[in-house]
């Protein structure tokens, strides 16, 4: 066990290493913190009100256990989704695994070491989502000390079950997929497959919830105590046992339910270790290797072509993004995941969406569309990793005869062109699903293409301020950095306020006038951002990183 502990500590140290971080980075955390504090109060207030309101409605009906049931079900679902993404990246995309394979360690020891970081994330999420509601429910229902004691034990056990389910599913998929020849490609396919799987589950759940049946069932379940809890947790016993453990905390049956949760969690933990020992290393071995073949003279000659420097550089950027599984997942797939997920939910819930936008005026529709898509393009990870992605290759930008402006232009262009995929998807939704008028689509397209350029400059600028080049594993470019959040907050903050103002000012009416105001502001913002970036480049800041 002591070896497992050493592996865990080393892996965490590597992830959170301070190497290459300067003190000035602290200001980034301070800004993030400043944004965070008021949000935190706001968030806790909302949770408190929600729990109180639900309790007041459900308690007289004897259905107050539903609150905890929903909480457990929700948190397990959320932790499952987070586990899926973190397990995929930590277990399979992170290439530091190769440093551990030659050591005399059991698979499960490496596996537990790798699980340490995902577990930190899970506990962080669980404390943010579970703890406030848990304490408010305890306070409002006048729970005794055992409720809190059991609750804390359950909090500790909380991530184990969802994590195990996600990890086992992924280990099975990877054991199978990794047999394929091209490891990088298999990793990407597995990544997309896994995200598609999450969407599929969502679709299945939604298709099975027939609203007619639901109302009939509801009437039946409401009759008995904890009936609603039984109804919603019937497919997922851990949520039921956990809830009953807490609501019955004062009686012996509560203790039995707690015991059940402990037993299920322990079983899940050992199942994870057992299957990990069996499947993990077999799935991960050979990762990072490519397939070698003899190159034909004809093929090589065909590939030799002269291109302008900016295009050649941009192609290099795109090639690296598309070929590095971590970059591909972060910069391409994850930015598409949001719109695709939303689209499917929208389609399932309302079927026909033509006319959905008719509820709003043309000006309002444009503002909604604009702010929604600027969130999408603003959350793309390509620009905020423009420089950090380079890692050890960065010095090449300095010793090759490349104009710094050229380098940054190509990097911004690469991030911008990746956003085109998201924009094309939204365009298709606007044309085919919402069937918006042509003039509105054209105006939106112009606005969002410039906004995408703006957010690409903004992200690149922020990355230049505090780049992370000393990584040993591509994951570190995105993990434990707030830069993506900061970029999004700045962009959405500014445009959010602008959209709110435009929405509420009656003096600015109609599609054309409001769009024109937006256009002017975006162009000015883009100009200011380019000037800021040029200033940094002129000061040779890129040479000091």
């Amino acid at each position: 066990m002591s070896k497992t502990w050493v592996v865990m500590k080393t892996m965490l140290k590597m992830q959170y290493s301070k190497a290459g971080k300067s003190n000035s980075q602290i200001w980034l955390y301070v800004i993030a913190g400043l944004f965070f504090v008021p949000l935190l109060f706001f968030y806790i207030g909302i949770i408190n009100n929600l729990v109180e309101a639900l309790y007041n409605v459900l308690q007289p009906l004897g259905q107050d256990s539903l609150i905890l049931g929903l909480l457990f079900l929700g948190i397990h679902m959320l932790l499952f989704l987070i586990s899926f993404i973190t397990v995929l990246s930590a277990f399979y995309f992170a290439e530091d695994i190769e440093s551990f394979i030659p050591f005399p360690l059991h698979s499960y020891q490496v596996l537990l070491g790798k699980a340490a970081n995902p577990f930190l994330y899970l506990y962080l999420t669980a404390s943010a989502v579970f703890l406030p509601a848990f304490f408010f429910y305890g306070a409002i229902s006048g729970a005794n000390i055992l409720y809190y004691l059991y609750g804390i034990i359950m909090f500790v056990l909380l991530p184990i079950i969802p994590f195990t389910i996600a990890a086992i599913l992924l280990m099975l998929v990877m054991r199978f997929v990794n047999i394929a020849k091209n490891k990088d490609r298999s990793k990407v396919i597995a990544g997309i497959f896994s995200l598609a799987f999450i969407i599929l589950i969502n679709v299945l759940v939604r298709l099975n919830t027939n609203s007619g049946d639901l109302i009939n069932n509801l009437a039946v379940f409401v009759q008995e105590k904890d009936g609603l809890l039984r109804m919603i947790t019937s497919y997922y016993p851990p949520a039921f046992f956990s809830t009953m453990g807490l609501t019955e905390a004062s009686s012996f049956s509560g203790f039995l339910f707690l015991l059940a949760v402990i037993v299920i969690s322990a079983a899940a933990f050992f199942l994870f270790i057992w299957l990990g020992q069996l499947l993990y290393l077999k799935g991960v071995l050979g990762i990072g290797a490519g397939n070698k073949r003899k190159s034909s003279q004809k093929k090589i000659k065909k590939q030799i072509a002269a291109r302008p420097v900016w295009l050649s550089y941009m192609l290099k950027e795109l090639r690296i993004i598309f070929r590095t599984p971590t970059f591909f997942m972060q910069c391409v797939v994850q930015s598409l995941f949001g719109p695709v997920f939303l689209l499917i939910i929208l389609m399932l819930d309302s079927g026909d969406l033509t006319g959905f936008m008719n509820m709003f005026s043309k000006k309002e529709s444009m503002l909604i569309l604009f702010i929604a898509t600027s969130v999408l393009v603003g959350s793309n990870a390509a620009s905020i990793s423009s420089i950090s992605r380079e890692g050890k290759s960065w010095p090449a930008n300095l010793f090759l005869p490349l104009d710094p402006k050229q380098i940054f232009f190509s990097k911004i262009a690469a991030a911008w062109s990746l956003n085109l995929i998201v924009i094309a998807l939204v365009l298709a939704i606007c044309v085919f699903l919402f069937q918006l008028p042509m003039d509105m689509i054209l105006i939106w397209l112009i606005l969002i293409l410039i906004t995408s350029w703006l957010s690409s400059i903004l992200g690149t600028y922020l990355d230049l301020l505090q780049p992370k080049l000393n990584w040993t594993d591509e994951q570190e470019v995105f993990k434990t950095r707030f830069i993506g959040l900061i970029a999004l907050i700045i962009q959405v903050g500014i445009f959010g306020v602008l959209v709110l103002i435009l929405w509420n000012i009656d003096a600015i009416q109609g599609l054309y006038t409001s769009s024109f105001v937006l256009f002017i502001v975006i162009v000015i913002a883009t100009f200011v951002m380019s000037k800021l970036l040029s200033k940094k480049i002129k000061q040779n800041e890129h040479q000091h990183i």
Partner: protein
Amino acid sequence: MIEIKNVSKNFPGKNKAINELNLTIPDGKIVGFLGPNGAGKSTTIKMMTGILPIDKGSITLNGYNIEKNALEAKKIFGYVPDQPDMFLRLKGIEYLNFIGDIFEIPKEIRQERIETLTKQFNIYNALDDYIQTYSHGMRQKIIVTGVLIHDPDIWILDEPLTGLDPKSAYMLKEMMREHADKGNTVFFSSHGLEVVEQLCDEVAIINKGELIFHGNKQEIREQFQSDQSLEELFLELTSDE
């Protein structure tokens, strides 16, 4: 010709990495750059190539100041870094093409040079593979090829022979000799003293950021009036006492 004048470099919280360095690397010569680990070799080379900013002093390459005329200076030298782990997700041929585009080498010349050089280095058949799949030596060879395809006047090579097989190392040494004999500049750092002994026209030795010797092999012996091997002299010069 490379001229390093009064160059100093500080890293925060550390002793002076380079202190008032003066060194002239003439045309037509191969100059070896020696020094123990941490002596300041890589720092000097990084300043010469524009990777690190210079705190004080100046470096010019064929008259172009690396800071003030960076682009012009960078066009006339080729640099092989000590770590060839760059652009690993590109294929060998894509990397060479990228370098060709940056140095604006016409397609026909590019095609011919790539074919000749990679066949000489025995990596032609691996050009369509990702650099990530290359061994250390092959990575070194692709970077060296990248330097040679644009045929720069000045070669700056940081540990260029590390990881090369004997045949490729021999070839590279021959190429260095030919290049210098044509009147060009070749400057390289090395840990292998025997390579320096057989190949270099001049030797520069640096220790703790200061140049402690610069001259040809004859001068080194005259100065120290001994017939010791370069290895023994090196150990004597760089010892702490």
